[in-house]
């Protein structure tokens, strides 16, 4: 039975670059997929595009493409990525320019557009679950609304001969499912195979998180070579059978245990993993180690896709200010607590409009609340919400003022202010979000 080799070149926007180069060079891949678009990133990218119409794509696009395109072009590896963020067409033009600069043979680069559904969402004034109100309630605070597109447009692009497909918001597994549908000619309603393909995508989408990354907990769970972690690839057959593996000589490990952790990562009901292309069912998946760093995953299926697409809505939601300072030695915890009390009192005394204010002692109670034990050193952290950058900055200012006004021995102040781009979600009938493919050819 014919198999397709599909690799994961990035699991988030800031991921390491060399593992993808290694895969493009000696992975004997058909496809290399880069997942680089977190939930909130697209709203930030939309802001960048408004400031400059040629921007709004992933800031690391240049570095990744320069590193990987030569080997991908040489070895006939097609690339699929959501690095287009808020501006896939500009990203496609940029990739074409990079290919030309590198002197590569002419490449066909496809941009998938249509995920920007702000106008359609406003027209129906969709309910935003997180605020329990319709979109219009957010008024001018709305920054972006992007639908999670499925695999259709990626399939269209590959069928037209694209060497590189660059999308904006697309469901992460669809970046992998698209190439599989194209390679095997799976029908759009072959729910069992689409469910199996979604499983391949789900397992690979976080790249190193299935090949030993984010797994080590020595001595119970040890992983060798994390500094040169190899990214995963899957060998998928046309019935949807799947083996996850990585390149010999790379760091990390692919075991039943690493695959199980990734299988359950960020899913809710394993029997109903909602995707734009299929409702996948992972509830009876079987995982078997068949050789070192080779794991077979089978048993996924699926049923008819939902009639709606999920939309993520980015909106401005005030500012967050933060300040931190460290204390050490006997009484560190008491001095840290005193420091935080002083900051809270100062903010109230000076009428700073901060609500809510949160105070943590890092090393004591910041992650899970106080769970016992005493710390030699603590880091006092005050953080709160405000309506403006100036108000938010008051928190860091009061923490910094602890140097000369607070408890003894405080050091290492850090302070920050950031604007909050919150993310809400809505649902839109799929016919209101038609995807479209545009092509750019690089000159040689």
């Amino acid at each position, binding site marked *: 039975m014919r198999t397709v080799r599909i690799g994961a070149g990035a699991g988030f926007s800031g991921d390491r670059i060399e593992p993808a180069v290694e895969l493009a060079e000696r992975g004997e891949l058909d496809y290399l997929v880069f997942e680089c678009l977190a*939930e*909130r990133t697209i709203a930030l990218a939309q802001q960048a595009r408004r400031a400059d119409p040629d921007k709004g794509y992933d800031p690391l696009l240049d570095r990744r493409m320069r590193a990987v395109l030569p080997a991908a072009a040489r070895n006939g590896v097609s690339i699929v990525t959501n690095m287009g963020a808020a501006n896939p067409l500009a990203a496609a033009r940029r990739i074409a320019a990079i290919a030309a600069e590198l002197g590569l043979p002419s490449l066909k680069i496809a941009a998938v557009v249509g995920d920007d559904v702000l106008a359609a969402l406003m027209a129906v004034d969709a309910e935003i679950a*997180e605020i329990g109100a319709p979109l219009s309630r957010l008024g001018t605070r709305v920054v972006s609304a992007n639908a999670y597109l499925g695999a259709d447009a990626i399939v269209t692009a590959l069928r037209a001969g694209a060497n590189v497909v660059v999308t904006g918001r697309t469901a992460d597994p669809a970046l992998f499912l698209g190439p599989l549908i194209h390679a095997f000619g799976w029908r759009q309603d072959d729910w069992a195979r689409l469910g199996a393909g979604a499983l391949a995508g789900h397992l690979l989408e976080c790249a190193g998180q299935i090949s030993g990354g*984010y*797994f080590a*907990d020595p001595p*119970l*769970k040890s992983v060798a070579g994390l500094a040169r972690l190899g990214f995963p690839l899957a060998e998928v057959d046309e019935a949807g059978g799947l083996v996850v593996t990585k390149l010999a000589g790379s760091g990390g490990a692919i075991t*039943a*245990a690493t695959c*199980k*952790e*990734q*299988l*359950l*990562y*960020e*899913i*809710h*009901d*394993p*029997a109903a993993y909602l995707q734009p292309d299929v409702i996948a069912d992972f*509830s*009876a*998946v*079987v*995982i078997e180690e068949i050789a070192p760093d080779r794991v077979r995953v089978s*048993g996924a299926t699926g049923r008819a896709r939902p009639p709606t697409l999920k939309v993520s809505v980015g909106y401005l*939601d005030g500012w*967050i200010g933060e300040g931190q300072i460290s204390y050490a030695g006997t009484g560190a915890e008491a001095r840290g607590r005193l420091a935080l009390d002083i900051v809270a009192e100062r903010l109230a005394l000076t009428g700073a409009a901060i609500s*809510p204010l*949160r105070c*943590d002692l*890092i090393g004591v109670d*910041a*992650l*899970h*609340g106080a*769970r016992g034990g005493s710390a030699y050193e603590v880091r006092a*952290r005050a*953080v*709160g*919400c405000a309506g403006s950058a100036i108000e938010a900055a008051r928190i860091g200012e009061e923490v910094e003022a602890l140097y000369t006004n607070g408890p003894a021995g405080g050091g290492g102040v850090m302070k920050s202010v950031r604007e*909050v*781009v*919150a*993310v809400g*979600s809505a649902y839109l009938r799929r016919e209101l979000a038609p995807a479209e493919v545009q092509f750019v050819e690089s000159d040689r």
Partner: protein
Amino acid sequence: MKLREIAHSRSGDKGDISNISLIAYDAKDYARLREHATAARVKRHFAGIVAGEVLRYEMPTIAAFNFVARAALGGGVTRSLALDAHGKSLSSLLLEMEIDG
């Protein structure tokens, strides 16, 4: 005994919902986990962190469970004031839970 002696875990986020897996190292411990690591026990263990309900999905073919906790991330990653806004460390908290050996 602590859960970490017989199981491993990873947590992830979607909005204000955290999902936390619990995976037996050895399939023979699945029944013991099923009996002791109930949704109600886990909800109590996460008191002060998880405000909403906790659901448990069973995955017998891989000897694992998926706990889904609502209102677990201080309003969601982008608005949370928590140091670990994604709740990435909640897997470590789950593994600290004591069960009868």
